[in-house]
């Protein structure tokens, strides 16, 4: 059998229109939420990078102090 067009009778087109509008809005909102989450993830990665570099600098500074106090012969 060849592909035949199928005609579907819709009893309440306004209800369908409303539902489709609702669906469209929900999809739009979801896309916006995903963009927000993406932005937050990027910010989070930046913060973690900043944290890591801060930590490395703190470790360096502390090692200067500990070397001075505990191993003065090294300096």
């Amino acid at each position, binding site marked *: 059998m060849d592909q035949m067009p199928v005609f579907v009778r819709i009893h309440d087109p306004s209800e369908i229109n409303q539902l489709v509008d609702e669906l469209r809005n929900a999809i739009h909102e979801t896309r916006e939420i995903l963009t927000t989450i993406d932005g937050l993830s990027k910010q989070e990665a930046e913060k973690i990078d900043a944290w890591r570099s*801060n930590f490395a600098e703190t470790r360096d*500074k502390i090692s200067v102090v500990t070397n001075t*106090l505990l191993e003065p012969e090294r300096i």
Partner: protein
Amino acid sequence: MAKKAKKKAAPKEEFFVAMNDPHVTRVSLLEARRKTLESMRVFQELKELRKQKIHEKSKLRKNLKHISATINKIKKTMPHINLPSEPKPKPVKKIVQIEKKPATLPPKPRSELDRIEDGLADIESKLAHLS
């Protein structure tokens, strides 16, 4: 009694370290303190970000549920039609050796992910049937 005990305790050996450049040590200590405080600030900001992210994720979950419910409503609103399907050629059966399992495991509780995967499989089979 406590005073007597303190008096009896052996005097601690005193230890001095010569600091050739105390200024450098002081600056290093202060900078380390500054960096630690900055790290604490970053940590607080990170906590806020994560809280915000959790909030956004819950919004996303609600939205996805809403989308799913709306799709179901649309499906229910549309009239149900059974289209005649074309007969498909039967696939050739392959002889496969099935290994016997030692014991049957108790069924695992079905998670949300399992239900979603079942729904996807159902939709895919329907699409395959239509095409």
